[in-house]
């Protein structure tokens, strides 16, 4: 199974990704997913999301997921791009493409990969409110956060 992984602060260029797609003659299905930053999360109006990533572990965990897909049969190719850093509303933070012989397995693999990513790949996001787009908001999390004395992003991606 061909695999391609990119974790990048650059905008995701879907046209360029599609331009280099290649299918062998037995492949009949391409499923592509773009995850785009929404302007609202719950009641809050957002300007952007700031993504942080523990990159070496994310790469390792992504490749473990790819290994599991490779054992599934007639998937020819998986490509995944995750953007990190600040991603503005309306821009894509994630692009996933699965090429397979048949439609059902392409859809299933694409959804499975995203579900598993959200379970095991160490990437986190925090909201940048629309009203103060230069300052990240309090982090999204279950606990009240004390006001940090450190800079607003203490976890730059390595």
């Amino acid at each position, binding site marked *: 199974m061909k695999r391609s992984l990119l974790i990048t602060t650059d905008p995701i260029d879907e046209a360029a990704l599609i331009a280099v797609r290649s299918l062998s003659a037995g492949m009949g299905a391409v499923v592509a997913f773009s*995850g785009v930053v929404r302007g609202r999360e719950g009641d809050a109006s957002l300007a952007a999301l700031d*993504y*942080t*990533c*523990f990159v*070496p*572990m*994310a790469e*390792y*965990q992504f490749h473990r997921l790819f290994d599991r897909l490779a054992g599934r049969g007639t998937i020819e190719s998986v490509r995944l791009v*995750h953007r990190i850093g600040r991603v503005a509303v309306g821009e894509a*933070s*994630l692009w996933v493409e699965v090429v397979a012989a048949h439609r059902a397995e392409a859809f299933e693999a694409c959804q499975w990969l*995203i579900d598993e*990513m*959200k*379970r*095991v*790949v*160490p*990437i*986190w*996001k*925090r909201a940048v409110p629309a009203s103060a787009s230069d300052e990240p908001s309090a*982090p*999204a*999390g*279950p*606990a009240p*956060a*004390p006001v*940090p*004395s*450190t800079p607003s992003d*203490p*976890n730059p991606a390595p």
Partner: protein
Amino acid sequence: MTIPVTFWSYFAELAGRPETSVELPQGATVGALLERVYVDHPALAGLRRSTLVAVGVEYQDDTHVLSAGDRVSLFPPVQGG
């Protein structure tokens, strides 16, 4: 042995710092490391049930035995996508 610990995402704010290190005897487990971390960073203790622990790039649970040279990461549930 000295085990470096990195806090990711809002765990860094809760800890007040992005990294620390913990001194542990040979053969100590992830669970023992967490107990030490929670002494210095009690704000994290309440999130123990949802805390994810990686040693290097692998997830590990409380029973995992640490070795000299290991690097531990503590973080909340991941949110990619």
